[in-house]
């Protein structure tokens, strides 16, 4: 059964948005900015901006190489960030945390290392209609090379994953279910517990795309019993260019390297090369050292605010936005009524999303307009694109009110 709880109406108890906003210098430099595009990338708090700068000033050197003190200090910071990420996901071992460029690279890594080894013709990979292109295209690239089948679990009329239909897609041929934790278009929280249980019952592994969920929900990979979990640092208030792939030890151990280079080898000769154990086997070349360290600061920042508190705040805010926008004539919120968190998409009758985006921008409201890298979902909803508003820890009801007012201005302009 999907877990659908009624939207919490209690507003932000104990969550002081005005204080949180002071942690984000972007709002000082851009007075009046109504930033509703955190699903694309989050703004950065001072502990991240200043922490990274301080690291460059004091302890920077390459990692896992130098015998000198600075390199040791840098390595300590880098590995401490890995431990922070482990704690954040409640992974059993920090060796299960692979630093990658982001969710996209994490999924490509699983496809071209685990998938290339364990998938073959006749096998099936189950995705869903909610997926971001980054959880579709890597599987297609691999499929075109080795010839398995890709299936998409449908959403129901209300916009949620149809669990019964999903279950019918699972067969002994299903080797992997790769699905998002929270939709980057509708904010729908996928009932991942049920998805994982059903997939595991058929012997399939499960990869979750946690790009939207990680900054918004407590995530416990052991409680979920998920096989792979991927997220991006920059959507979690950290730097761009860094992300995490969690993989269960036993799975990572039997996966071949997917990129070769320095840092990932045991010994190299022209005849034969041996590789390090995970996670270093998957981190060829000099990693994004400051990125990983910045990500550690960002995850600490999130934990400082409290992950339950963030979830409750964003769920209440999303609920407020959905009901506020739903009362505007001509405005349709996609997938409203499902449990939504932090993200919502809407259409305005008679006005193209790009025109909406431009008018909103003129009103200092930053949203995303278009297909949100989820064209199959747009087709499923029968729209060319939507306007998307998404929230972060720095947003409150006043941002939603500004959005609603800007929508009215757009409607006035287009007399829709």
């Amino acid at each position, binding site marked *: 059964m999907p877990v659908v709880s009624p939207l919490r109406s209690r507003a932000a108890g104990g969550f002081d948005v005005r204080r949180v906003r002071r942690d984000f210098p972007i709002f000082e430099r851009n007075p009046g900015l109504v930033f509703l595009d955190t699903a694309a990338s989050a703004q950065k708090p001072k502990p991240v901006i200043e922490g990274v700068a301080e690291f460059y000033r004091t302890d920077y050197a390459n990692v896992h190489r130098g015998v000198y003190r600075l390199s040791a200090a840098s390595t300590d910071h880098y590995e401490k960030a890995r431990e922070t990420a482990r704690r954040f996901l409640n992974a059993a071992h920090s060796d299960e945390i692979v630093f990658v460029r982001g969710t996209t690279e994490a999924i490509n890594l699983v496809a071209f290392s685990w998938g290339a080894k364990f998938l073959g013709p006749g096998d099936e990979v189950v995705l869903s209609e909610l997926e971001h292109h980054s959880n579709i295209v890597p599987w297609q690239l691999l499929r075109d090379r080795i010839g398995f089948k890709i299936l998409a679990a449908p959403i129901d009329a209300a916009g949620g994953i149809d669990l019964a239909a999903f279950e019918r897609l699972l067969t002994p041929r299903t080797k992997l279910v790769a699905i998002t934790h929270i939709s980057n278009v509708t904010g729908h929280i996928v009932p991942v517990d049920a998805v994982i249980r059903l997939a595991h019952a058929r012997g399939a592994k499960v990869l979750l795309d946690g790009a939207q969920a990680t900054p918004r929900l407590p995530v416990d990979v052991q409680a979920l019993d998920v096989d792979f979990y991927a997220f991006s640092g920059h959507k979690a208030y950290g730097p761009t260019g860094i992300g995490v792939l969690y993989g269960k030890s036993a799975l990572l151990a039997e996966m071949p390297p997917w990129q070769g280079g320095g840092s990932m080898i045991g010994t190299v000769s022209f005849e034969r090369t041996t590789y390090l154990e995970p996670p270093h086997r998957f981190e060829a070349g000099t990693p994004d050292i400051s990125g990983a360290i910045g990500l550690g600061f960002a995850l600490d920042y999130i934990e400082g605010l409290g992950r339950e508190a963030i979830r409750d705040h964003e769920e209440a805010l999303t609920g407020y936005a959905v009901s506020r926008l739903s009362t505007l004539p001509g405005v349709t919120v996609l997938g409203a009524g499902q449990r939504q968190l932090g993200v919502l998409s809407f259409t305005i009758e*008679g*006005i*193209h*999303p*790009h*025109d909406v985006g*431009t*008018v909103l921008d*003129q009103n200092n409201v930053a949203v995303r*307009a*278009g*297909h949100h890298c989820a*064209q199959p979902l*747009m087709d499923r909803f029968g729209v*060319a*694109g939507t306007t998307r508003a998404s929230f972060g820890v720095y947003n409150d009801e006043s941002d939603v009110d500004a959005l609603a007012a800007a929508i009215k*201005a757009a409607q*006035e*302009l*287009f*007399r829709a």
Partner: protein
Amino acid sequence: MTMDLRELYQDIILDHGRHPRNFHAMAKPSHFAHGHNPLCGDKVTVYLKLEGDRIADVSFEGRGCAISTASASLMTEVLKGKTLAEAEALFKSFHARVTGGDPVPAPPELADDAERLEPLTGVKTYPARVKCATLAWHAFEAAVKGGALGVSVKTE
């Protein structure tokens, strides 16, 4: 509403966006092409009936924002009856104005047509929207080159 927005969304744009002219498929085009903006998913198909090097008829269909729809609509209005050389001159002049590049004045005999397209040039201060205004023109150009094959062109 700010003045900036009025400059972008002039009445003529809103009118052509809502009620596009020559907005239909053509039964037997001599030339046609599909234009696609992968960034936003906007699509337009431009149909031509050429007689010699003269554009006897031109129409379009597709889905897009007010800017791209209005641009396609106004384009069909100014292109009807023109020679290909005149069409090319109009596109060059229009392209320079919407991208804010070095001015390429249209020949004097096309000044009225260039003037008809002027309301679209408000996009030059909205870099993210310039391609909306040029999509139909790129499809037109591709149609001329591609003939009855129905080639596809993406915005650069």
